């Protein structure tokens, strides 16, 4: 009985370690995405996600991804929200008309 209990605890520990590793991996990947695509203006986003921005359900999926990430772990959610903000903001600015950009510069 003691052996069973200890094995269960060890499995739980392994699961916890695995979960921690996955969280760290997701955070690392998201930070790399922010560093490579969001922080460098000259490096463009992948064409597919730029074209998908105009579709509302894609933006729904992005925001729901943030919700699910926050539900899983609030640190993951924070980093995902940061990436989602940069993505939604940058792509909207790049796909909007130049009139607004001119007004922004003059203001």
């Amino acid at each position, binding site marked *: 009985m003691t052996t069973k209990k200890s094995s269960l605890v060890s499995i739980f520990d392994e699961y916890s370690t695995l979960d921690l590793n996955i969280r760290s991996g997701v955070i690392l990947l998201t930070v790399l995405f922010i560093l490579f695509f969001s922080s460098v203006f000259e490096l463009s986003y992948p064409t597919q996600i730029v074209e998908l921005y105009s579709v509302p359900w894609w933006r729904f999926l992005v925001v729901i991804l943030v919700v699910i990430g926050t539900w899983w772990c609030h640190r993951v*959610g924070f980093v995902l*929200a940061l990436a989602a*903000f940069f993505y939604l903001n940058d792509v909207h600015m790049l796909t909007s008309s130049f009139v607004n950009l001119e007004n922004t510069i003059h203001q």
Partner: protein
Amino acid sequence: MSGVQSGGVQRPVVDEIIQMTGHFSLLFLVLVCVYVSRIPSNILYKFKKTWVQLLGVLGIMTITALYGYIHGILAALAFSLVVSHALRSGSEGFTGSCDSPVLVLDNDSASFVPKSHRWFSEKVLGENPIAINEDRVTTSAVQDLSERTMGTNSSNVSR
């Protein structure tokens, strides 16, 4: 007697309301994030003011305290997107349309346009503006101060 609930903790009414409004507020925040470009410009213009932005930050903190991390992070995302769009969206002030009069009249430098004295361009173009942001333009004469051109000018003068 079996139908009577015994024991447990009686939840305050405020907690019940917060629990009930949690899903609706989450849906509202998701919709704001997705359709932030559809927000009217007169609402976006209010987010340019500093005290509105400070209120927004306080609102995010309140939402986080009331509902938790999910609502808080989503509220922060929605607020950041709205403020970013508000700071980027500009209006010329003389658009000829009256769908956003608040945008023009809220500005400190805006003044009403008198109906009696209309500008020539307004008469010609058939514009009937209610207010105007800037009615004066400061100009200066064109001056070329480059060295090469100055040399040419001096030679012309010497002739």
